[in-house]
Protein backbone atom coordinates (compact mmCIF):
# COMPACT_ATOMS: atom_id res chain seq x y z
CA UNK A 1 0.00 0.00 0.00
CA UNK A 2 2.81 2.39 0.83
CA UNK A 3 4.73 3.35 -2.24
CA UNK A 4 8.24 3.56 -0.87
CA UNK A 5 9.59 4.72 -4.19
CA UNK A 6 7.89 8.06 -3.64
CA UNK A 7 10.10 8.71 -0.66
CA UNK A 8 13.27 8.19 -2.66
CA UNK A 9 12.22 9.99 -5.81
CA UNK A 10 10.82 13.09 -4.28
CA UNK A 11 12.72 13.53 -1.05
CA UNK A 12 15.37 15.79 -2.64
CA UNK A 13 12.66 18.10 -3.91
CA UNK A 14 10.94 18.13 -0.55
CA UNK A 15 14.28 18.88 1.05
CA UNK A 16 14.66 21.93 -1.18
CA UNK A 17 11.35 23.20 0.10
CA UNK A 18 12.51 22.53 3.64
CA UNK A 19 15.66 24.50 2.95
CA UNK A 20 13.63 27.49 1.77
CA UNK A 21 11.50 27.25 4.89
CA UNK A 22 14.66 27.45 6.97
CA UNK A 23 16.00 30.43 5.06
CA UNK A 24 12.72 32.27 5.33
CA UNK A 25 12.42 31.70 9.07
CA UNK A 26 16.02 32.76 9.72
CA UNK A 27 15.49 35.99 7.77
CA UNK A 28 12.20 36.57 9.53
CA UNK A 29 13.73 36.34 13.00
CA UNK A 30 16.74 38.40 11.92
CA UNK A 31 14.30 41.16 11.03
CA UNK A 32 11.64 40.40 13.59
CA UNK A 33 13.64 40.41 16.81
CA UNK A 34 15.22 43.86 16.30
CA UNK A 35 11.84 45.16 15.19
CA UNK A 36 10.29 43.60 18.28
CA UNK A 37 12.89 45.35 20.43
CA UNK A 38 12.06 48.69 18.82
CA UNK A 39 8.35 48.05 19.37
CA UNK A 40 8.89 47.05 23.00
CA UNK A 41 10.88 50.21 23.70
CA UNK A 42 8.37 52.25 21.73
CA UNK A 43 5.56 50.87 23.80
CA UNK A 44 7.31 52.12 26.95
CA UNK A 45 8.06 55.51 25.44
CA UNK A 46 6.91 58.70 27.11
CA UNK A 47 5.95 60.17 23.75
CA UNK A 48 2.27 59.34 23.40
CA UNK A 49 2.41 59.18 19.62
CA UNK A 50 5.20 56.60 19.58
CA UNK A 51 3.65 54.58 22.35
CA UNK A 52 0.26 54.57 20.61
CA UNK A 53 1.72 53.49 17.29
CA UNK A 54 3.76 50.71 18.85
CA UNK A 55 0.86 49.40 20.92
CA UNK A 56 -1.50 49.51 17.94
CA UNK A 57 0.93 47.62 15.74
CA UNK A 58 1.40 44.95 18.38
CA UNK A 59 -2.31 44.52 19.06
CA UNK A 60 -3.25 44.49 15.38
CA UNK A 61 -0.76 41.78 14.51
CA UNK A 62 -1.47 39.65 17.57
CA UNK A 63 -5.23 39.68 17.20
CA UNK A 64 -5.55 38.69 13.55
CA UNK A 65 -4.81 35.44 11.69
CA UNK A 66 -1.41 35.29 10.02
CA UNK A 67 -2.99 34.22 6.74
CA UNK A 68 -4.80 37.51 6.34
CA UNK A 69 -1.66 39.45 7.18
CA UNK A 70 0.12 37.54 4.44
CA UNK A 71 -2.56 38.35 1.91
CA UNK A 72 -2.63 41.99 2.93
CA UNK A 73 1.13 42.28 2.49
CA UNK A 74 0.86 40.47 -0.84
CA UNK A 75 -1.74 42.86 -2.23
CA UNK A 76 -0.87 46.10 -0.47
CA UNK A 77 2.89 46.29 -1.07
CA UNK A 78 2.56 46.75 -4.85
CA UNK A 79 0.34 49.76 -4.03
CA UNK A 80 3.37 51.47 -2.57
CA UNK A 81 5.47 50.56 -5.55
CA UNK A 82 7.11 47.54 -3.92
CA UNK A 83 6.91 44.71 -6.42
CA UNK A 84 8.59 41.97 -4.47
CA UNK A 85 8.71 38.27 -5.14
CA UNK A 86 6.48 36.07 -3.04
CA UNK A 87 9.43 34.91 -0.95
CA UNK A 88 10.32 38.44 0.14
CA UNK A 89 6.70 39.29 0.82
CA UNK A 90 6.58 36.15 2.93
CA UNK A 91 9.67 37.10 4.89
CA UNK A 92 8.32 40.59 5.59
CA UNK A 93 4.94 39.26 6.65
CA UNK A 94 6.48 36.62 8.90
CA UNK A 95 8.86 39.19 10.38
CA UNK A 96 6.04 41.64 11.10
CA UNK A 97 3.90 38.90 12.65
CA UNK A 98 6.81 37.64 14.73
CA UNK A 99 7.86 41.11 15.84
CA UNK A 100 4.52 41.72 17.56
CA UNK A 101 5.00 38.61 19.69
CA UNK A 102 8.71 39.23 20.19
CA UNK A 103 7.84 42.72 21.41
CA UNK A 104 5.63 41.41 24.18
CA UNK A 105 8.24 38.86 25.21
CA UNK A 106 10.96 41.50 25.37
CA UNK A 107 8.66 43.89 27.21
CA UNK A 108 7.97 41.26 29.85
CA UNK A 109 11.71 40.69 30.15
CA UNK A 110 12.39 44.38 30.67
CA UNK A 111 9.62 44.65 33.25
CA UNK A 112 11.13 41.73 35.15
CA UNK A 113 14.35 43.63 35.84
CA UNK A 114 14.18 45.27 39.30
CA UNK A 115 13.39 48.98 39.17
CA UNK A 116 16.54 49.85 41.08
CA UNK A 117 18.68 48.83 38.13
CA UNK A 118 17.18 51.47 35.88
CA UNK A 119 17.24 54.00 38.70
CA UNK A 120 20.92 53.55 39.42
CA UNK A 121 21.70 53.86 35.72
CA UNK A 122 19.67 57.05 35.35
CA UNK A 123 21.03 58.45 38.64
CA UNK A 124 24.59 58.16 37.35
CA UNK A 125 23.72 60.22 34.27
CA UNK A 126 22.92 57.63 31.63
CA UNK A 127 20.24 58.46 29.11
CA UNK A 128 17.25 56.16 28.61
CA UNK A 129 18.93 54.47 25.69
CA UNK A 130 22.31 54.17 27.42
CA UNK A 131 20.58 52.63 30.44
CA UNK A 132 18.75 50.15 28.23
CA UNK A 133 21.76 49.20 26.17
CA UNK A 134 24.30 48.90 28.98
CA UNK A 135 22.31 47.84 32.00
CA UNK A 136 18.78 46.60 31.35
CA UNK A 137 18.80 44.74 28.05
CA UNK A 138 21.87 42.60 28.81
CA UNK A 139 20.12 41.36 31.93
CA UNK A 140 17.00 40.43 29.99
CA UNK A 141 18.82 38.05 27.66
CA UNK A 142 18.67 35.00 29.90
CA UNK A 143 15.03 35.73 30.69
CA UNK A 144 13.79 36.14 27.13
CA UNK A 145 15.78 33.41 25.44
CA UNK A 146 13.35 30.52 26.15
CA UNK A 147 10.16 32.37 25.11
CA UNK A 148 11.93 33.80 22.07
CA UNK A 149 12.90 30.31 21.02
CA UNK A 150 9.34 29.14 21.55
CA UNK A 151 8.09 31.91 19.34
CA UNK A 152 10.61 30.91 16.67
CA UNK A 153 9.13 27.42 16.72
CA UNK A 154 5.73 29.02 16.19
CA UNK A 155 7.10 31.00 13.25
CA UNK A 156 8.40 27.79 11.68
CA UNK A 157 4.90 26.37 11.77
CA UNK A 158 3.23 29.58 10.60
CA UNK A 159 5.60 29.69 7.63
CA UNK A 160 3.56 26.86 6.14
CA UNK A 161 0.89 29.46 5.45
CA UNK A 162 3.19 31.12 2.93
CA UNK A 163 2.25 28.27 0.64
CA UNK A 164 -0.98 30.16 0.01
CA UNK A 165 0.94 32.86 -1.84
CA UNK A 166 2.88 30.26 -3.79
CA UNK A 167 6.15 30.45 -1.91
CA UNK A 168 7.95 27.18 -2.67
CA UNK A 169 8.60 26.33 0.95
CA UNK A 170 8.08 22.90 2.47
CA UNK A 171 4.27 22.79 2.47
CA UNK A 172 3.91 24.19 -1.07
CA UNK A 173 6.46 21.70 -2.30
CA UNK A 174 4.48 18.95 -0.64
CA UNK A 175 1.31 20.10 -2.38
CA UNK A 176 3.11 20.15 -5.72
CA UNK A 177 4.49 16.65 -5.26
CA UNK A 178 1.05 15.54 -4.18
CA UNK A 179 -0.31 17.01 -7.37
CA UNK A 180 2.17 15.00 -9.41
CA UNK A 181 2.06 11.69 -7.60
CA UNK A 182 -1.49 11.56 -6.20
CA UNK A 183 -0.03 9.94 -3.09
CA UNK A 184 -1.02 12.38 -0.32
CA UNK A 185 -0.17 10.03 2.52
CA UNK A 186 3.48 9.48 1.64
CA UNK A 187 3.97 13.13 0.74
CA UNK A 188 2.38 14.71 3.77
CA UNK A 189 3.98 12.21 6.11
CA UNK A 190 7.37 13.36 4.81
CA UNK A 191 6.36 16.99 5.17
CA UNK A 192 4.93 16.55 8.67
CA UNK A 193 7.95 14.58 9.85
CA UNK A 194 10.34 17.24 8.61
CA UNK A 195 8.49 19.98 10.49
CA UNK A 196 8.28 17.78 13.55
CA UNK A 197 11.97 16.87 13.45
CA UNK A 198 13.01 20.51 13.14
CA UNK A 199 10.71 21.46 15.98
CA UNK A 200 11.95 18.69 18.26
CA UNK A 201 15.60 19.40 17.52
CA UNK A 202 15.37 23.06 18.42
CA UNK A 203 13.16 22.37 21.43
CA UNK A 204 15.48 19.77 22.89
CA UNK A 205 18.56 21.94 22.37
CA UNK A 206 16.74 24.68 24.24
CA UNK A 207 15.79 22.33 27.06
CA UNK A 208 19.37 21.22 27.43
CA UNK A 209 20.69 24.78 27.50
CA UNK A 210 18.10 25.73 30.09
CA UNK A 211 18.99 22.81 32.28
CA UNK A 212 22.68 23.62 32.23
CA UNK A 213 22.02 27.28 32.90
CA UNK A 214 19.76 26.64 35.88
CA UNK A 215 22.32 24.23 37.31
CA UNK A 216 24.80 27.11 37.35
CA UNK A 217 22.28 29.28 39.11
CA UNK A 218 21.96 26.76 41.93
CA UNK A 219 25.73 26.51 42.26
CA UNK A 220 25.98 30.26 42.55
CA UNK A 221 23.48 30.29 45.38
CA UNK A 222 25.48 27.73 47.32
CA UNK A 223 28.74 29.59 46.70
CA UNK A 224 27.23 32.83 47.88
CA UNK A 225 25.86 31.47 51.12
CA UNK A 226 29.23 29.86 51.88
CA UNK A 227 30.94 33.19 51.45
CA UNK A 228 28.43 34.82 53.77
CA UNK A 229 29.12 32.23 56.47
CA UNK A 230 32.84 32.83 56.20
CA UNK A 231 32.43 36.59 56.18
CA UNK A 232 30.27 36.75 59.26
CA UNK A 233 32.80 34.76 61.20
CA UNK A 234 34.98 37.83 60.91
CA UNK A 235 37.87 36.47 58.90
CA UNK A 236 37.87 38.96 56.11
CA UNK A 237 37.43 42.52 55.21
Amino acid at each position, binding site marked *: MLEYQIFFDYFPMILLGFWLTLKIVVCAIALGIPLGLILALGRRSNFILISFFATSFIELFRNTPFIIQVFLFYYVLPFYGLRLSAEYVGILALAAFGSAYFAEIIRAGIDAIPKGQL*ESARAIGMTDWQSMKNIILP*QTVSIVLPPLTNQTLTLIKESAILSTITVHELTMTGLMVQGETFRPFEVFIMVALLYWALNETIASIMRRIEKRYSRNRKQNKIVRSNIDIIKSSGFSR
Partner: protein
Amino acid sequence: MKPNFLEVIDINKKFGNINALKNVSLNVSKGEVICIIGPSGCGKSTLLRTVNWLTPPDSGKVILKGEIIGSDTGKMTFEQNRSLNEFRARIGMVFQQFNVWPHLNALENVVRAQIVVRKRMRDEAEKKAIKILNEVGLKDKIDEWPDNLSGGQKQRLAIARSLAMDPILMLLDEPTSALDPELIGEVLSVLRNLVNEGMTMLIVTHELGFASKFGDKIVFMDAGEIIESGPPNTILKSPKTERLKLFLEKLSLTSL
Protein backbone atom coordinates in the same frame (compact mmCIF):
# COMPACT_ATOMS: atom_id res chain seq x y z
CA MET B 1 26.37 86.38 51.74
CA LYS B 2 27.88 83.30 50.31
CA PRO B 3 25.52 81.73 47.77
CA ASN B 4 24.38 78.29 48.78
CA PHE B 5 25.90 75.28 47.11
CA LEU B 6 22.61 73.41 46.96
CA GLU B 7 19.21 74.95 47.47
CA VAL B 8 16.01 72.99 47.71
CA ILE B 9 13.12 75.44 47.56
CA ASP B 10 9.48 74.77 48.40
CA ILE B 11 9.31 71.22 47.16
CA ASN B 12 5.89 69.59 46.99
CA LYS B 13 5.27 66.01 46.01
CA LYS B 14 2.08 63.98 46.10
CA PHE B 15 1.71 60.28 45.45
CA GLY B 16 -1.96 59.80 44.72
CA ASN B 17 -3.63 61.10 47.85
CA ILE B 18 -0.55 61.00 50.00
CA ASN B 19 1.28 64.28 50.55
CA ALA B 20 4.86 63.05 50.64
CA LEU B 21 6.52 66.45 50.75
CA LYS B 22 4.92 69.70 51.87
CA ASN B 23 6.76 72.89 51.00
CA VAL B 24 10.13 71.52 52.02
CA SER B 25 13.14 73.78 51.77
CA LEU B 26 16.75 73.05 52.55
CA ASN B 27 20.06 74.82 52.10
CA VAL B 28 23.37 73.05 51.87
CA SER B 29 26.79 74.68 51.85
CA LYS B 30 29.79 73.25 50.09
CA GLY B 31 31.45 70.55 52.12
CA GLU B 32 28.52 70.26 54.49
CA VAL B 33 27.37 66.84 55.64
CA ILE B 34 23.65 66.77 56.39
CA CYS B 35 21.99 63.74 57.91
CA ILE B 36 18.27 63.40 57.47
CA ILE B 37 16.42 61.36 60.07
CA GLY B 38 12.79 60.59 60.74
CA PRO B 39 10.20 57.82 61.02
CA SER B 40 9.52 55.69 57.97
CA GLY B 41 7.19 57.29 55.49
CA CYS B 42 8.14 60.81 56.54
CA GLY B 43 9.40 61.69 53.07
CA LYS B 44 13.15 61.68 53.68
CA SER B 45 13.90 59.34 50.79
CA THR B 46 11.52 61.25 48.56
CA LEU B 47 13.30 64.49 49.43
CA LEU B 48 16.65 62.97 48.54
CA ARG B 49 15.32 61.73 45.23
CA THR B 50 13.98 65.14 44.24
CA VAL B 51 17.48 66.58 44.41
CA ASN B 52 18.60 64.65 41.35
CA TRP B 53 15.08 64.56 39.94
CA LEU B 54 14.83 60.80 40.15
CA THR B 55 11.45 61.69 41.58
CA PRO B 56 10.51 64.98 39.95
CA PRO B 57 8.72 67.29 42.40
CA ASP B 58 5.22 68.53 41.62
CA SER B 59 6.32 72.08 42.36
CA GLY B 60 9.37 73.84 43.70
CA LYS B 61 12.95 74.18 42.57
CA VAL B 62 16.26 72.48 43.09
CA ILE B 63 19.28 74.69 42.43
CA LEU B 64 22.83 73.36 42.38
CA LYS B 65 25.67 75.85 42.12
CA GLY B 66 23.25 78.43 40.83
CA GLU B 67 21.67 76.28 38.13
CA ILE B 68 18.24 74.74 38.17
CA ILE B 69 18.14 70.96 38.09
CA GLY B 70 15.38 69.61 35.88
CA SER B 71 13.00 72.51 35.52
CA ASP B 72 10.82 74.75 37.63
CA THR B 73 7.69 73.60 35.91
CA GLY B 74 6.39 70.07 35.85
CA LYS B 75 7.87 69.12 32.48
CA MET B 76 11.25 69.39 30.85
CA THR B 77 12.38 70.51 27.47
CA PHE B 78 14.85 68.50 25.48
CA GLU B 79 17.64 70.84 26.57
CA GLN B 80 16.69 70.54 30.21
CA ASN B 81 16.65 66.78 29.88
CA ARG B 82 20.16 66.83 28.53
CA SER B 83 21.50 69.05 31.27
CA LEU B 84 19.69 66.88 33.83
CA ASN B 85 21.79 63.95 32.72
CA GLU B 86 24.89 66.12 33.04
CA PHE B 87 23.86 67.11 36.55
CA ARG B 88 23.27 63.51 37.51
CA ALA B 89 26.76 62.64 36.36
CA ARG B 90 28.08 65.11 38.92
CA ILE B 91 25.76 63.92 41.69
CA GLY B 92 26.53 60.51 43.12
CA MET B 93 23.69 58.43 44.48
CA VAL B 94 23.95 55.42 46.74
CA PHE B 95 20.87 53.26 47.32
CA GLN B 96 19.68 51.19 50.24
CA GLN B 97 19.48 48.11 48.01
CA PHE B 98 22.93 48.79 46.49
CA ASN B 99 21.67 48.34 42.90
CA VAL B 100 25.03 47.14 41.63
CA TRP B 101 24.86 45.79 38.11
CA PRO B 102 25.01 41.98 38.35
CA HIS B 103 25.94 41.29 34.74
CA LEU B 104 29.19 43.29 35.02
CA ASN B 105 32.12 42.46 37.27
CA ALA B 106 33.28 44.89 39.95
CA LEU B 107 35.78 46.68 37.74
CA GLU B 108 33.30 47.06 34.92
CA ASN B 109 30.65 48.39 37.30
CA VAL B 110 32.99 51.26 38.12
CA VAL B 111 34.27 51.70 34.57
CA ARG B 112 31.10 51.54 32.50
CA ALA B 113 29.50 54.86 33.45
CA GLN B 114 32.83 56.64 33.08
CA ILE B 115 33.07 55.50 29.48
CA VAL B 116 29.41 55.86 28.55
CA VAL B 117 28.55 59.08 30.37
CA ARG B 118 31.86 60.90 30.81
CA LYS B 119 33.25 59.60 27.54
CA ARG B 120 36.61 58.73 29.06
CA MET B 121 38.98 56.32 27.35
CA ARG B 122 39.05 52.79 28.65
CA ASP B 123 42.58 52.80 30.14
CA GLU B 124 41.97 56.08 31.92
CA ALA B 125 38.67 54.78 33.26
CA GLU B 126 40.20 51.49 34.41
CA LYS B 127 43.10 53.19 36.15
CA LYS B 128 40.73 55.43 38.03
CA ALA B 129 38.47 52.51 38.84
CA ILE B 130 41.30 50.46 40.30
CA LYS B 131 42.46 53.41 42.37
CA ILE B 132 39.02 54.00 43.83
CA LEU B 133 38.34 50.31 44.42
CA ASN B 134 41.57 50.28 46.40
CA GLU B 135 40.42 53.24 48.46
CA VAL B 136 37.16 51.55 49.42
CA GLY B 137 38.98 48.36 50.35
CA LEU B 138 38.00 46.18 47.39
CA LYS B 139 41.50 45.73 46.00
CA ASP B 140 41.18 41.93 45.84
CA LYS B 141 37.71 41.99 44.38
CA ILE B 142 38.37 43.83 41.15
CA ASP B 143 37.49 40.90 38.91
CA GLU B 144 34.81 39.54 41.17
CA TRP B 145 31.16 39.25 40.18
CA PRO B 146 28.64 41.15 42.32
CA ASP B 147 26.80 37.90 43.07
CA ASN B 148 29.86 36.76 45.01
CA LEU B 149 30.18 39.90 47.10
CA SER B 150 28.79 40.44 50.57
CA GLY B 151 26.32 43.24 51.23
CA GLY B 152 28.99 45.51 52.63
CA GLN B 153 31.22 44.88 49.64
CA LYS B 154 28.37 45.55 47.24
CA GLN B 155 27.61 48.85 48.89
CA ARG B 156 31.27 49.85 48.81
CA LEU B 157 31.27 48.91 45.13
CA ALA B 158 28.23 51.14 44.63
CA ILE B 159 30.01 53.99 46.39
CA ALA B 160 33.11 53.44 44.25
CA ARG B 161 30.94 53.49 41.14
CA SER B 162 29.61 56.91 42.10
CA LEU B 163 33.01 58.28 43.14
CA ALA B 164 34.54 57.39 39.78
CA MET B 165 32.40 60.08 38.24
CA ASP B 166 34.07 62.82 40.35
CA PRO B 167 30.86 63.96 41.98
CA ILE B 168 30.50 67.33 43.69
CA LEU B 169 27.58 66.09 45.78
CA MET B 170 26.71 62.68 47.17
CA LEU B 171 23.18 61.52 47.97
CA LEU B 172 22.99 58.46 50.19
CA ASP B 173 19.61 56.83 50.81
CA GLU B 174 19.90 54.71 53.96
CA PRO B 175 23.23 53.24 52.80
CA THR B 176 23.56 50.82 55.69
CA SER B 177 19.94 49.89 56.39
CA ALA B 178 20.03 46.71 54.34
CA LEU B 179 23.30 45.46 55.78
CA ASP B 180 23.92 42.84 58.40
CA PRO B 181 25.20 44.59 61.53
CA GLU B 182 28.76 43.31 61.27
CA LEU B 183 29.07 44.73 57.75
CA ILE B 184 27.92 48.24 58.58
CA GLY B 185 31.28 49.33 59.95
CA GLU B 186 33.20 48.83 56.71
CA VAL B 187 30.75 51.03 54.82
CA LEU B 188 30.72 53.72 57.50
CA SER B 189 34.50 53.94 57.44
CA VAL B 190 34.41 54.57 53.68
CA LEU B 191 31.84 57.30 54.27
CA ARG B 192 33.99 58.75 57.05
CA ASN B 193 36.89 59.08 54.63
CA LEU B 194 34.62 60.88 52.20
CA VAL B 195 33.58 63.33 54.90
CA ASN B 196 37.19 63.99 55.79
CA GLU B 197 37.96 64.70 52.15
CA GLY B 198 35.37 67.47 52.17
CA MET B 199 32.61 65.89 50.09
CA THR B 200 29.21 67.57 50.29
CA MET B 201 26.81 64.85 51.40
CA LEU B 202 23.11 64.39 52.08
CA ILE B 203 22.59 61.18 53.98
CA VAL B 204 19.29 59.63 54.97
CA THR B 205 20.22 57.36 57.82
CA HIS B 206 19.32 55.68 61.09
CA GLU B 207 22.94 55.58 62.23
CA LEU B 208 22.77 58.31 64.86
CA GLY B 209 26.28 57.52 66.03
CA PHE B 210 27.73 58.32 62.65
CA ALA B 211 25.47 61.33 62.31
CA SER B 212 26.55 62.85 65.58
CA LYS B 213 30.24 62.31 64.90
CA PHE B 214 30.49 63.28 61.26
CA GLY B 215 27.36 65.27 60.48
CA ASP B 216 27.49 69.05 60.39
CA LYS B 217 23.73 69.27 60.61
CA ILE B 218 20.90 66.90 61.41
CA VAL B 219 17.50 67.43 59.84
CA PHE B 220 14.47 65.75 61.40
CA MET B 221 11.48 65.13 59.16
CA ASP B 222 8.01 63.87 59.86
CA ALA B 223 4.92 63.56 57.66
CA GLY B 224 6.48 65.39 54.73
CA GLU B 225 7.84 68.39 56.64
CA ILE B 226 11.12 69.40 58.21
CA ILE B 227 10.31 69.65 61.90
CA GLU B 228 13.67 70.56 63.35
CA SER B 229 17.20 71.00 62.15
CA GLY B 230 20.46 71.94 63.74
CA PRO B 231 23.89 70.72 64.86
CA PRO B 232 24.00 67.12 66.14
CA ASN B 233 24.60 68.10 69.75
CA THR B 234 21.55 70.32 69.90
CA ILE B 235 19.26 67.98 68.02
CA LEU B 236 20.20 64.80 69.76
CA LYS B 237 20.86 66.09 73.28
CA SER B 238 18.24 68.83 73.56
CA PRO B 239 15.43 68.29 71.08
CA LYS B 240 12.98 71.17 71.03
CA THR B 241 9.85 69.68 69.54
CA GLU B 242 7.65 66.94 70.97
CA ARG B 243 7.77 64.85 67.82
CA LEU B 244 11.55 64.75 67.79
CA LYS B 245 11.62 63.86 71.46
CA LEU B 246 9.23 60.97 70.82
CA PHE B 247 11.24 59.79 67.84
CA LEU B 248 14.51 59.80 69.76
CA GLU B 249 12.88 57.96 72.64
CA LYS B 250 11.65 55.24 70.30
CA LEU B 251 15.11 54.90 68.75
CA SER B 252 16.88 54.61 72.09
CA LEU B 253 14.38 51.97 73.18
CA THR B 254 15.13 49.79 70.19
CA SER B 255 18.87 50.22 70.47
CA LEU B 256 18.80 48.85 73.99
